[in-house]
């Protein structure tokens, strides 16, 4: 069984694209091979900055011969139909076989596809993979038309069998395949040929290339932690940075450098951000104090001076960067000392948040008002929540955040402390943007929660008010993310939070904001419009006023609540709760209380996973269907509940008793919001309901008995519907 080795050698591939590209190469090629009948034992793909490599082991040397039988037209079909069939099947008339079938004699073709040698298939599959490669961004170069992430220089493609390696011949846009590659750009630039995957790896290593990105990352981390440890220090972990750096080098050499004392007073986040974002350095901190004191950089080569020149250069670049950061930090502190945080935030009045939603300062005022309201249910002091909301975005006007936008919030905390705030206010400044993503931590401190909720609800209602809702894949204002943030803040803090109440409050203020701006414009323009028309006509003035009034668009919060519910469904589906279960709970009263809604959904989910629960749904649906049909036919509503004295069968009486017992348990449980008890009481009805349908014909000839039974079904429906809207459950 031969092995296959492929290497696509190019100019530097962006680090962030490498691992995905290796996986794509593996999938495209192996899928293509399998589809053509070439199965294999194992495959693995690797990436370095300059190459994508795929090794496939234990592949068939040729694809198996296949036979397909195809049924054609009847033997007496018109010639045209038979000719069409022949064309489609690729056979001649004399190759057809006539067989008797129940419908008479029918023509059959047997299509035989002979196996093909693996190299032919590999060449085809690889060319297709290269031409159709799903790079996030691809380009052309020179005079060619091939698209690759950066210019592609060579294709290594060999099949290795018992009698050695052979090049699989192919050519893509003038690049012919071969068995050679190159080593490290500077340390071993010469070309060399290889005879198999092991040989390839060994030769690459001799040529200063570590093929496997995981090995590079491990090596970097190992050397970095050792270097730091020797100095009594530790490296700040950063998996993303490690992966990126491993994608920037073929021959990693770890170097540790000094941070000038002048910069050690900067907040650690500033040092870390500046070093990471600009220089791709790891931060190294003192194990005891946690203070960041050094940096680790990863060079792509060894040098005769053990990296001294490289390190000196990196240190100089870092000093220039940090000098900038220090300048911003000191300027910001000076500003706060002179005019306070509110003074620093003053320019936000000039910064447009959205032209229909006013300035950042307008937004801050709305959030502060809303945070005061929200403070109560989340257990924060209203004054502190308001105070935090007022200054939470002041850092947007700082020089530091202008330079490092990713430090928004973090700088807010430092500046709030510098301005003398405490009691959880600085923390709220840092945390009020959270959670940003599905895996980001959710704040738990009450003031942080209040401001974080107010921030997101204002975003949602604001954009709702100006009709900038997300559509399809377009969500330019990240409203889905904001909605998920609201959901997680409420659920993970187990808040009793009447969403409708706050959506309404907020909508109102956003709406007013919109109207103020819109009206101001209208009113400013109105006199001009009137003058242009050369009139001071009373009716005209009235009309203009009405036009201004008409701009008020009616919006209600229910639309926004269903958007939140939709996001909640996505969130819960990821936790394994079906959308119909959530629908059944959303239909119930009080579903704007998301914590309650989720408790109900979880209880319903649990009960539906039991045998009783699953069957109860069937019973419920059956009862509901019979009842609905009867009600429609009779034009009445059977809602009185049955009377036990009209019961004929034992099962009927048993159901009666069971319903009474269930009702007695469900009522109090629901009042306590003890959904689990209520649900299990409901599930206990399964036996009696099943037995009832087994033994009894609802549509009895006796009118009284029939009515009574319908009323009994109505009780089933009524009792079940107090727990959840089971009619929305699938199945």
């Amino acid at each position: 069984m031969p092995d296959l080795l492929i290497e696509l050698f190019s100019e530097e591939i962006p680090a962030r694209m490498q691992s995905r590209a290796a996986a794509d190469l593996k999938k495209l090629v192996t899928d293509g091979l399998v589809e053509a009948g070439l199965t294999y034992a194992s495959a693995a793909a690797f990436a370095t900055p300059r190459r994508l490599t795929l090794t496939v082991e234990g592949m068939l040397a040729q694809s198996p011969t296949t036979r397909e039988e195809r049924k054609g037209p009847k033997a007496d079909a018109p010639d045209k139909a038979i000719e069409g069939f022949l064309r489609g099947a690729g056979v001649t008339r004399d190759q057809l076989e006539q067989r008797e079938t129940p419908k008479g004699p029918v023509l059959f073709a047997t299509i035989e596809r002979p196996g093909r040698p693996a190299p032919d298939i590999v060449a085809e599959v690889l060319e297709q993979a290269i031409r159709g490669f799903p790079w996030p961004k691809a380009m052309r170069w020179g005079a060619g038309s091939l698209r690759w992430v950066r210019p592609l220089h060579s294709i290594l493609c060999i099949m290795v069998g018992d009698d050695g390696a052979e090049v699989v011949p192919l050519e893509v846009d003038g690049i012919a395949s071969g068995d050679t590659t190159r080593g490290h750009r500077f340390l071993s630039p010469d070309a060399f040929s290889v005879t198999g995957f092991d040989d390839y790896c060994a030769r690459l290593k001799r040529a200063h290339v570590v093929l496997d990105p995981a090995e590079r990352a491990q090596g970097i981390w190992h050397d970095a932690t050792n270097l730091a440890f020797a100095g009594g220090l530790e490296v700040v972990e950063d998996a993303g940075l490690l992966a990126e750096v491993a994608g920037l080098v073929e021959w990693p050499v770890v170097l540790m450098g000094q941070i000038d004392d002048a910069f050690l007073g900067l907040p650690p986040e500033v040092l870390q951000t500046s070093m990471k974002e600009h220089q791709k350095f790891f931060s190294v901190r003192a194990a005891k104090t946690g203070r960041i004191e050094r940096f680790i950089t990863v060079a792509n080569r060894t040098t005769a001076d053990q990296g001294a020149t490289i390190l000196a250069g990196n240190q100089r670049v870092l000093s220039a960067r940090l000098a900038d950061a220090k300048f911003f930090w000191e300027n910001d502190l000076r500003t706060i000392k002179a005019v306070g945080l509110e003074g620093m935030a003053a320019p936000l009045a000039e910064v447009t948040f959205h032209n229909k939603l006013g300035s950042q300062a307008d937004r801050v005022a709305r959030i502060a008002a809303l945070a005061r309201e929200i403070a109560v249910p989340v257990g924060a002091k209203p004054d502190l929540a308001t105070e935090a909301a007022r200054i939470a975005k002041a850092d947007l006007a700082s020089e530091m955040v202008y330079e490092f936008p990713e430090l928004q919030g973090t700088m807010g905390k430092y500046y709030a402390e510098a301005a003398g705030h405490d009691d959880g206010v600085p923390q709220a400044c840092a945390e009020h943007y959270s959670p940003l993503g599905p895996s980001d931590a959710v704040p738990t401190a009450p003031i942080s929660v209040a401001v974080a909720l107010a921030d997101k609800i204002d975003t949602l209602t604001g954009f709702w008010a100006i009709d900038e809702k997300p559509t399809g894949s377009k969500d330019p204002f990240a409203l889905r993310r904001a909605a998920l943030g609201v959901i997680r803040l409420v659920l993970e803090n187990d808040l009793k939070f009447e969403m409708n109440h706050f959506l309404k409050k907020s909508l109102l203020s956003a709406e007013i904001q919109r109207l103020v701006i819109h009206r101001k414009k209208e009113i400013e323009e109105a006199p001009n419009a009137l003058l242009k028309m050369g009139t001071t006509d009373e009716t005209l003035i009235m009309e203009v006023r009405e036009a201004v009034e008409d701009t008020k668009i009616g919006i209600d919060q229910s639309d926004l609540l269903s958007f939140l519910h939709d996001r909640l469904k996505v969130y819960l589906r990821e936790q394994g709760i079906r959308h119909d279960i959530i629908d059944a709970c959303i239909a119930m009263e009080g579903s704007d209380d998301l914590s309650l809604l989720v408790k109900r959904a979880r209880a319903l989910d649990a009960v539906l996973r039991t045998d009783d629960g699953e069957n109860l749904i069937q019973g419920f649906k059956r009862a509901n269907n019979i009842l609905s049909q009867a009600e429609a036919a009779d034009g009445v509503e059977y809602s009185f509940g049955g009377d036990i004295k009209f019961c004929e069968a034992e099962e009927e009486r048993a159901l009666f008793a069971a319903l009474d017992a269930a009702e007695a348990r469900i009522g109090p449980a629901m009042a306590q919001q003890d959904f689990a008890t209520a649900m299990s009481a409901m599930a206990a009805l399964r036996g009696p309901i099943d037995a009832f349908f087994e033994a009894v014909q609802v549509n009895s000839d006796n009118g009284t008995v029939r009515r009574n039974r319908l009323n009994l079904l109505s009780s089933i429906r009524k009792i079940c519907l107090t727990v959840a809207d089971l009619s929305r459950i699938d199945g």
Partner: protein
Amino acid sequence: MSDVSTTPRSFQEIILRLQAYWAQKGCAILQPYDMEVGAGTFHPATTLRSLGTQPWAAAYVQPSRRPTDGRYGENPNRLQHYYQYQVLIKPSPPDLQALYLGSLEAIGVDMDLHDIRFVEDDWESPTLGAWGLGWEVWCDGMEVSQFTYFQQVGGYDCHPVSGELTYGLERLAMYILGVDHVMDMPFNDPGASIPLSYGDVFRQTEEEYARWNFDVANTEVLLRHFVEAEQECKSILGQAHDDPKTGKRIVMAHPAYDQCIKASHIFNLLDARGVISVTERQAYIGRVRTLAKMCADAFVQTRAGGWVPDAADEKATA
């Protein structure tokens, strides 16, 4: 010519070595464009010549102006007027990376001691309607050049693709010469009878332009000039391709493009004066882009831009 194996001694020596290197590699060494531009890319030798099918290879220094970056000559590496070195080769040769690395060696970067990296950086110029893929080149963690394969210019797909190299000369030279403040960098040879620093040459102008850019430039006049440049550009391009006087086909892409450059620079000045709001910004950029696209449309109608008369036209003119 100085020996390339030694470290250069001055700013100008680095420029001269780059000129010699790229001349030796077959580029036409052009002179700076005689108009104010924000970057070397605006030189018609790059913008317009990257369009069409004609092969091209040019290198030049381009003084560049970024009014908002002025710091009165006080900041160690921010200037409102600085130099870029620009190389454009079409089609991009397969060994462009090696050629580029050779140029670093030529200006005294010892490849055995430094760590050179190609780090992803895609380039986009909203004002030129242009984008490309490439890298910023790092030397020991410092960005020393931009390396771009042009994909689109003026809204046109580049075919063939040009390879563009841009060196920020001051920053690169400061690194090579080991200088921390740009104004301290030797401009000519420190051993010359009259040694001049970068500050001797430019401190005065940095101060003067910073004041003018930020506080004095007459915004009404600038706004008017912007509109006039825009109008003139459109009016030039609105002329018939056939010149009534000479009877020749003369598409005036370059004079029109001059007006586009002018509008772009005036926009930068207005921006420095702080009279352009965030929303207006987009609108202004869009207006310049429209001009750039019209100029690109015109250039591909010229012979230099690859236009060839079809047989019918030839007959008619014959």
